[in-house]
């Protein structure tokens, strides 16, 4: 009786999330099946409308063309740097603190900074001009701008996540492999990678999902009417410019399904990765 009594304390938070998170989700799915105009019963008209309209359908391709390459580059670079820093480096605390900045400051500020720094008259282009580059690249208000913004935002996130994960792996495993004569590459491939792979898979999934939902960067540093009209922008426009909440919900559902598909692919690949791993004993401390 008493044991049961205490568990009641989780109820307020659970109730809150059910009302404010689970219910709206269900309501959104329901709404997406009941178009604003036309049939009174449930219908897939919104989804047919979305997939039948090339201008809307294109947003999936646009978003994927941003999210997929960006995620791969971000995770690979973060993995390489975190692995190199696994036993600490000079000024680590200062560097990691600096890296938290873009996460804490948020996308809007980073976007404004990128518009200035990478802009046509920004410091980077001035530097390139000084270096004698004749044909100055255009780095903002296009696809490149969004890629830079997302990388600046998500590289630190992914790096800090992997650094915490990799530094939690027992260093004795690596030392034993070295003592037994394994070269650095073999240590990585046969000992460390199998231990890192689960963390890398989660990091990949998280970064992909965040990239796929890109909104403020795509508007502020991108070209929201064309090259970087992502699926989140399409959903927002339906909801707050056309006031068609039903269609907006349908697009949000499609966006969620795309993110889920990405997760599923990572999980499937992860099964493969584990199968090639050799050392799975003594998995990470945390």
């Amino acid at each position, binding site marked *: 009786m008493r044991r049961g009594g205490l568990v009641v304390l989780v109820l307020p938070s659970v109730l809150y999330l059910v009302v404010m998170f689970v219910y709206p989700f269900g309501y959104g799915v329901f709404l997406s099946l009941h178009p604003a105009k036309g049939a009174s019963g449930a219908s897939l008209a919104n989804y047919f409308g979305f997939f039948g309209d090339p201008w809307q359908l294109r947003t999936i391709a646009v978003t994927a063309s941003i999210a997929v390459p960006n995620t791969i580059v971000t995770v690979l670079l973060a993995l390489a740097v975190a692995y190199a820093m696994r036993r600490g480096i000079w000024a680590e605390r200062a560097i990691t603190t600096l890296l938290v900045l873009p996460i804490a400051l948020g996308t809007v500020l980073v976007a404004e900074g990128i518009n200035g720094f990478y802009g046509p008259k920004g410091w980077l282009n001035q530097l390139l001009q000084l270096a004698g580059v004749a044909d100055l690249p255009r780095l903002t208000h296009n696809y490149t701008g969004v890629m830079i913004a997302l990388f600046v935002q998500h590289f630190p996130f992914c790096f800090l996540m992997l650094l915490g994960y990799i530094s939690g792996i027992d260093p004795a495993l690596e030392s034993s492999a070295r003592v037994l004569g394994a070269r*650095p590459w073999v240590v990585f491939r046969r000992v460390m990678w199998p231990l890192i792979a689960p963390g890398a898979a989660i990091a990949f999934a998280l970064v992909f999902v965040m990239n796929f939902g890109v909104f403020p960067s795509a508007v502020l540093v991108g070209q929201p009417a064309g090259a970087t009209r992502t699926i989140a922008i399409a959903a927002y426009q339906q909801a707050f410019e056309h006031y068609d909440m039903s269609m907006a919900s349908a697009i949000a559902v499609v966006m969620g399904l795309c993110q889920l598909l990405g997760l599923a692919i990572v999980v499937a690949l992860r099964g493969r990765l584990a199968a090639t791993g050799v050392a799975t004993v003594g998995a990470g401390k945390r």
Partner: protein
Amino acid sequence: MRGRVWRLVVFVFIVGFTLNLVGIVSHVAVSSLARRWFATPLPGAFTTEWYAYAWHEFQLPQVLTVTATVAASVTALALLLGFPAAYVLARRGFRAKNAVLLLYFLPLLIPQMTYGIPLATSLYRYRIGGTVAGVILANLVPMLPLAIFVLLPFVEQISESLEWAARVHGAGRWQVFRRVVLPLALPGLLTAGLLVLVNTVANFELTFLLSGAGSQTLVVALYYAVFAAGMRPIYSVDAMAVIYMGIVLLILVAALRFVRPTQMVFRLGGK
């Protein structure tokens, strides 16, 4: 030899990336102080008048009041609802525990744009959307789980035998909470509070979807200013950005006294 080249490449990359970060942030700061700045390394003349201009033109007194109200309310509510939950999760096992943990995880995992649109739709339906209350309620959705997951390890560290000892000496349940658990959990509450505070001030998507004319927080007001670039001098937009940056940095510096930077992101492979 090869190892050394490799380390050098990594080091150069880190230096490059941090320089790029410093450049991004300081470009905003320099621009906010420029009288006029066009294609030169530094502006010709400096001025602070853009701050006064931004203060009036962007209605910053009102925006800052909303921001403070939202941040304080979300923090208080997240701790109030989150602490009991973290306590139970740390102390007891129960049948639906995994389902409850999943429920706490999802709002942190799913991007805000995905669940924000249905959430906004339902809140506008009940006429809560567009108000300060709506912004607070929506922000609490990801912040409550954040508070719970930050608090959890802190509560786990409090030895249960201390509570038993207090009970043996005749303390009631409330007294145990008030005199034993709460003082020991104070560092955790402070850490969780600061992290929720900085995340709420910087949280864009949900606030953006839920806020109306009188309920914009600073970061949303900044978004609209950047979005409508050209309406007002860019220097005044950057002045507002610097004010925003100052507030976030202040809370961040306080938060970093308690947590390591690596703890600011998801704990991978944790519970």
